[in-house]
């Protein structure tokens, strides 16, 4: 057995791969071989660390030094200075805004300090394609404990006691759902993991599947034991090829070790897993449409009852949970329900993984205890708003969710509090917006997404969202009329009450939420034909002010020759020709061009 004196952990999550981490790895391998260090230093590909904005990320052990934004050209310094001579490459360390010194250990960076990583504990710290590394952290011992020392009902009680609620967005108590499926009589039952993750911008589930797939498999197996199922499906969207690849490897490795398959731990419990790839439909994240899709039918929802717990996949009792929900289960079994319930709030226990996106400095993935405030997430972990701009709102819950304005920044982030203010937890995608975001435009964006994804089965969703979108589009183009807001509200209420499934029922949420907190923006669009944020191009005009010195730089960059003027005299823009690209404003050295 070789002894490696150093491990270089390179993030190979999809985010870092697209920033070039594979090239960094190739360069590293080549240089280590050249210097004869390849037998002493091991290169490990890990899953997503979460600090995606700063990728490609590299951690070097035994020192535990954390390097950010590593490029191919940096590898030579890492090898010659750090791996050879033991000197940290200071310029590759993470620096807080305005700081002079870098921070060597990721544990000391604010982004990580405020997190509590249970689901993401292993992500970025082990090789997801190597089951032994998962086992080294105690992996599959929870499954062993459940199978050999607990009865199925005891497992369900433990999950109930922990207070775990569905992390897909519904927030239904998971233990209670498991209990329903267990109670339904029948020899054949199924476990399904919903890994469709359709919310635009959400990538929590993807990172867990790419970074620590075994955790999810273990959670599913424990569920299977608890409810009496011997077969499980992972429904993974086809747009996640790396997650699918790692899952296939993980399942094979677990099967080879007898941890998934027949007679696990010699207890007579059988559990087999299959992967079903989605085909690009957001609606297939809805549980009944998902099951239809697995059965080979069109992914279209049906009414409930009957709920999957009574009649699900192929009519059999089925328990469906989100990736993150299953990923919480092993630790609940190992460390106990009381430990889990001590984290978070009374009714929202445990942690939640959030995808931080939008106009925030540290985009990435963070796992925090429930009950943390939105302000802490955005400013302490997220590093605040890009470019020092002003915070305007944060959209939480994706196309089903709502926005929170500044006055709600100090509220506790938990299931019930969010519903009270007209938002919802959703799957955990957070889109941070600044003063340049138009709230009408944002609701139009989300609604156009849900409209495109509507399966068409029920009239309220099929027709209703289409009409709502038409109204919103008119408003953003300066064609809004008096009465539009009231019509939007009536339509929204009707669709919410009558649509067949969650897609339609929650599609109006972004509109209702922005109307609740930013009604004045809608009014300005309709009555004044003005977009306060300056984002709706139909209502925006670029104008050259008296400050103009007539230097002519803007004329040169205008792609449609819309600017004219005499040398050294104030120029002007022909509004009919202007395509509102903003190139002139970006070029002007005197800040003489305004937008609004």
């Amino acid at each position: 057995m070789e002894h490696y004196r150093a491990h270089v952990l390179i993030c190979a999550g999809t985010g870092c791969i697209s920033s070039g981490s594979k090239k960094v790895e190739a360069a590293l391998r080549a240089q280590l071989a050249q210097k004869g260090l390849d037998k002493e230093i091991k290169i490990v590909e890990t899953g997503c660390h979460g600090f995606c904005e700063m990728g490609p990320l590299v951690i070097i052990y035994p020192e535990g030094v954390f390097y950010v934004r590593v490029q191919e050209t940096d590898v030579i310094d890492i090898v010659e200075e750090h791996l050879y001579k033991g000197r940290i490459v200071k310029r590759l360390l993470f620096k807080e805004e305005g700081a002079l010194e870098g921070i060597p250990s990721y544990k000391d960076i604010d982004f990580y300090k405020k997190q509590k990583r249970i689901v993401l504990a292993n992500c970025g710290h082990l090789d997801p394609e190597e089951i032994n590394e998962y086992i080294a952290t105690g992996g599959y011992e929870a499954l062993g404990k459940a199978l050999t020392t607990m009865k199925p009902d005891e497992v369900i009680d433990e999950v109930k006691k922990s207070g775990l609620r569905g992390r897909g967005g519904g927030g239904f108590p998971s233990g209670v759902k498991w209990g329903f499926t267990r109670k339904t009589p029948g020899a054949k039952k199924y476990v399904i993991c919903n890994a469709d993750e359709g919310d635009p911008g959400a990538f929590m589930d993807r990172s867990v599947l790419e970074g620590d797939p075994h955790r999810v498999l273990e959670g599913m197996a424990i569920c299977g034991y608890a409810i009496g199922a011997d077969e499980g499906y992972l429904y993974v969207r086809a747009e996640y090829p790396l997650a699918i690849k790692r899952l296939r490897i993980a399942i094979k490795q677990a099967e080879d070790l007898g941890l998934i398959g027949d007679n696990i731990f010699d207890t007579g419990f059988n559990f087999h897993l299959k992967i079903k790839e989605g085909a690009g439909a957001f609606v297939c994240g809805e549980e009944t449409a998902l099951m239809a899709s697995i059965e080979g039918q069109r992914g279209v929802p049906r009414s409930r009852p009957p709920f999957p717990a009574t009649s699900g996949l192929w009519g059999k009792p089925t328990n469906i949970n989100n990736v993150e929900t299953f990923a919480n289960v092993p630790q609940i079994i190992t460390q106990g329900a009381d430990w889990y319930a001590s984290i978070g709030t009374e009714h929202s226990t445990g942690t939640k993984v959030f995808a931080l996106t939008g106009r925030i400095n540290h985009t990435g993935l963070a796992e925090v205890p429930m009950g943390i405030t939105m302000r802490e997430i955005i400013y302490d972990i997220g590093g605040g708003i890009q470019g020092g701009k002003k915070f305007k709102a944060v959209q939480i819950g994706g196309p089903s969710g709502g926005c929170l304005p500044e006055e709600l920044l100090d509220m506790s982030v938990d299931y019930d509090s969010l519903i009270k203010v007209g938002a919802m937890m959703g799957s955990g995608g957070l889109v941070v917006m600044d003063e340049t975001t138009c709230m009408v435009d944002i609701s139009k964006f989300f609604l156009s997404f849900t409209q495109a994804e509507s399966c068409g089965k029920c009239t309220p969703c099929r027709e209703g969202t289409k009409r709502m979108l038409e109204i919103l589009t008119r408003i953003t183009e300066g064609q809004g009329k008096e009465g539009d807001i009231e019509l939007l509200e009536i339509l929204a209420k009707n669709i919410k009450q009558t649509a067949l499934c969650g897609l339609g029922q929650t599609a109006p949420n972004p509109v209702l939420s922005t109307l609740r907190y930013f009604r004045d923006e809608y009014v300005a669009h309709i009555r004044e034909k003005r977009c306060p944020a300056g984002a709706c191009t139909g209502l925006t005009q670029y104008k050259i002010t008296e400050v103009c010195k007539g230097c002519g730089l803007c004329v040169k960059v205008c792609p449609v020759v819309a600017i004219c003027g005499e040398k050294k005299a104030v120029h002007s823009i022909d509004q009919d020709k202007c395509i509102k690209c903003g190139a002139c404003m970006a070029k002007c050295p005197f800040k003489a061009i305004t937008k609004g």
Partner: protein
Amino acid sequence: MKTIEDLKRLRQQVQSQTRVRQECSKQIIVGMGTCGIAVGARDVMSAILDEISKRKLEDITVRQTGCMGMCEKEVLVDIVLPGEPRITYGRVTAADIPKIIAQHVINGQPVKEMVVGKFTE
């Protein structure tokens, strides 16, 4: 994998694969500044790693460091055991490693004739 004991045994076995990423109680530090490398620190390093691997030793971190200052006495190798002061060996060759590991690292007895320094707080 038949029983949970099998799993626990496998866990013990494979923990050594990721040990480098955890804090270890014993440390071996090899001076790899230009002076050290010129005199053969790379061979000493390889010998240390071979010995550890041969003896299947656990709970040891092997690190490199730059020039420690006593260039005359390179190759320098420091041993840190829990609760003990850091001992520096000088003029170390690959051939000395088995003895240093066996006598000092495993049995806790510094090889006095090779010691050139001891760190005191």
